């Protein structure tokens, strides 16, 4: 199965979101973007706009859920959290990812 670059990136973004949410407490969309950027030490620049379609897709799959709450500056914001289904899926994604990274690593260091 061939994956296009866009697919790969999209899939990766989704995994990163899940990973971010896996830390526990619910966070809003902007928080997710910020955290991905910080955790990757600014290496990964999340295209902020594409975050929302990804969030909605994940929600439709039932991997994350959302509810309206109040933000740290007292504004109404939508908070996302990981579901049990999402957690299970993340575990599988993570496994595959590590397999993939390991394979690439092997190839890169083979010479």
């Amino acid at each position, binding site marked *: 199965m061939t994956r296009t670059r866009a697919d790969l990136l999209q899939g990766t973004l989704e995994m990163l979101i899940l990973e971010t949410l896996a830390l526990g407490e619910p966070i809003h969309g902007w928080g997710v973007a*910020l955290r991905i950027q910080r955790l990757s030490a600014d290496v990964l620049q999340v295209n902020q706009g*594409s975050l*929302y379609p990804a969030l909605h897709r994940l*929600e439709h799959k039932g991997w994350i859920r959302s509810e309206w709450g109040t933000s740290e*500056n007292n504004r109404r914001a939508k908070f996302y959290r990981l*579901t049990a289904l999402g957690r299970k899926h993340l575990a599988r994604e993570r496994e595959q990812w590590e397999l993939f990274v390991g394979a690439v690593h092997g190839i890169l260091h083979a010479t």
Partner: protein
Amino acid sequence: MVEILKDMLRAVRLRIRRLLRAGAADRELDEEVRFHLEMEARRLVREGVPPEEAERLARVRFGGVERFKEQAREARGTRVVEDGMQDIKYGLRMLAKNPVFTIVAVLTLALGIGANTAIYTVVEAVLLDPLPFREPDRLTLLFTRNDEQNQERYMVSPMDFDDWRHMNATFESMAAYWPTTGTLLELDGGPTRVRIVYTTEDYFDVLGVSARVGRTFTPEEGPGSTPVAILSAGLWERRFGADPSVVGRTVTLDGGPIEVIGVVAQAQTFPADADMWINMTWPMQIQSRYARWMSAVGRLKADTDIVAARADLAALARRIEQENPESNRGWTVTVEGLKDVLVGDTRAALLVLLTATALVLLIACANVANLLLSRSEVRAREIAVRTAFGAGRARLVRQLLTESLLLSGLGAVVGIGLAWLGVRGLLAIAPVTLPRENDIGLDATVLAVVAGVSVLTGVLFGLAPIGRLVGSNLRTSITDGARTTGSASGHRVQSGFVVAQIALALMLVVSAGLLVRSFEKLRAVDTGFQAGGVLTAELDVATSVAETDTAVIDLYDRLERRLTALPGVVAVGDASTLPLGEQLDYSQPFQMADREFPAEVEPRAFLRPVAPGFFAAMRTPVVAGRAFDDRDRLDAPGAAIVNEAFVRRFLPDADPLGERFVHLGYRFGPLGALNKSEWEIVGVVRDVKYEGLREEVLPAIYFSGLQSSIKRRTLVVRYAGGSAATLTNALRDQVTAIQPTLALTNVRTLDDVVSAARSRDRFSTLLLVLFGTLALLLASVGVYGVLAYAVAQRTGELGIRMALGADRRAVRGMVLGDGMKLVAVGLALGLVAALALAGVLSSQLFGVSPRDPAVIGLVLLVLLGVGFLASLVPAWRATRVDPVVAMRGQ
């Protein structure tokens, strides 16, 4: 695990909620994005970016806000439905923005669908619906035929029938029947007239009809057995309250007892409107071969066809003819499919209507196509702009498809309404003789076919703008629309449609014109009698009431004397057969005392016993000699009167008065007889139309009703003053006074009889006039639409011309000329087609050639006029073009 299931369920619920409440989901998304941008801007401010710059930067970082909102929406997966709703809303808005276009298109579609479905439904019900018999396609009606005597479908004698039945090789079975009437005594003692059919015992087996209650005839119930009766479902319900116990009971028919053995299952009877069937119990072979009075129906063997059956029976008839040269000279057979006969003359008329319907459908489709093409020019520009703004092609196709479907759907809905009204209307004005009309409802298949064709046209041509878009590049589409005269090829297609419409309309209107003229001729036909102010009623005197010939003659004589004495009554007569009526007319060879006829002249005439007052009551002029009177009784010499056609054919150079017929006794089956065999011609009367208004009058001999004992006669009462209704009551009272068990049937005015004879012509004329008008209307809409559109497209060009000094008259002339050119080409083509197809209509015409120059000329003028009027408005509008405004549009 439970947790995971819950998550899945929640996801499903979420999708459904967002689908149902798309607006709320959108608002939430808005709020979320707003919050994000605000937070991002704040962060940037904290990092030292100026506030107004921070806001801009936040948006830049986010990327296209609307684009991602759109993507987010798409991610919700409810996109298709939302777009559909949006398309519908947009489509409705577009339709509402052009109310004239919408109304014309919807009405065109509706008329096309409605008119066609209504006609198709009636036609199909009549022509194509299966008869309620087992394998009806194998059923045939059998007639005798004699070309010399001009008899194509005559009845058969019992002996001939018996030979057919036993000696044929192609029929599985064959039955004979004889329809008549009788008087049934009801349980309360009141008499009621019923239509009886005497049948051979295998009749129901031949037709494949079974009994609902009781049984049909058994093979033993043939000649020599006791007559028994089977009731129709109609009579059983009407007169016996659908009581099953009537089977096995004995009822009184014509004064005698008869046992009811069953009730027929099917509501529809054969022959139509039969009330009761009784088995023929007389032996076939003792009757004369001359006495042709039975009808016959046969079921073909499964492995044969009607052609083989014709050959088979014709060979048989030749053998019978050789063995019986006296009685059967020139007599062969006619074999017709039962269905063909039942549908009968209606077929030709219906086929003409069907053709007209197809033409109207074509015109309507051309109109719809044209309207949509006109609009596509305008739409092509809008669509090019939308494409430039990033609308996907598939999305645009969907949008246009939605619009077309909306339009076609509206047309179809209105059309179905029209179709329903149309069927009701057709049945209301349909001639009473239209077969099997009670079974007709709106036909779903037909509706689907017609609506399908119309809607498909609408959808196909609704997509025309896309075709244009694919064919050209974007930029020229956008600029093109603003400037030039629109695409030339599109215009050519539209012009082609208009030409076709005009041509089709011409054909339809010419047909309508011809039928109207033919109908006028038919109205003007001299029937040989005056129909106004005459009441007619049938009476049948059963053997139980008047046993002897003298008693029958005496009864009618007494009754008519009493009727003549009624106030307001001018003259009273009777006849075995009424002109233009449904009764049988009997045709027979004759011999004259002092005359030999050359071989090529077959001496043969219709035999018509009439009471002395008949000619006076009908106001049929006696042109020579005298009418019958009280002298012409049984004890006097036989008196006969002939018509003018008789004199023309047989006695052209002689004085007919005093000529004598010899050996002319005749038995009208079981109905009675002529009671003399020698007759002297005492008078000549004007020709009277008996067989039909279109038919030529054939030679006929009238006999004095006082010298013939016909039991079943139609009374003819001419009255002055008083109403038909009061006279009817008086008539019934007099009949009851003479004999309480007698009942009148079929009481109606002579006007009704004549108008029934014209009804089918009136019906098809009216329908074709409707079609013609419709075609005219649609075609003029087509001409108008194309010209108006062309003018709108050429606004710029016209502006330039006028700015350069072209005067208004020249501009108007140019547009008018364009329109009339289309009309002229259409008319020329239509004329050729109309002349070529003239033959289709000729069977429906009377006294008018299908290429009648007066009608065609008039129609050409009318269509030219309509085309001119349709061109006038766009031409006028062209002269209103303001050069300045038009040039600015460039």
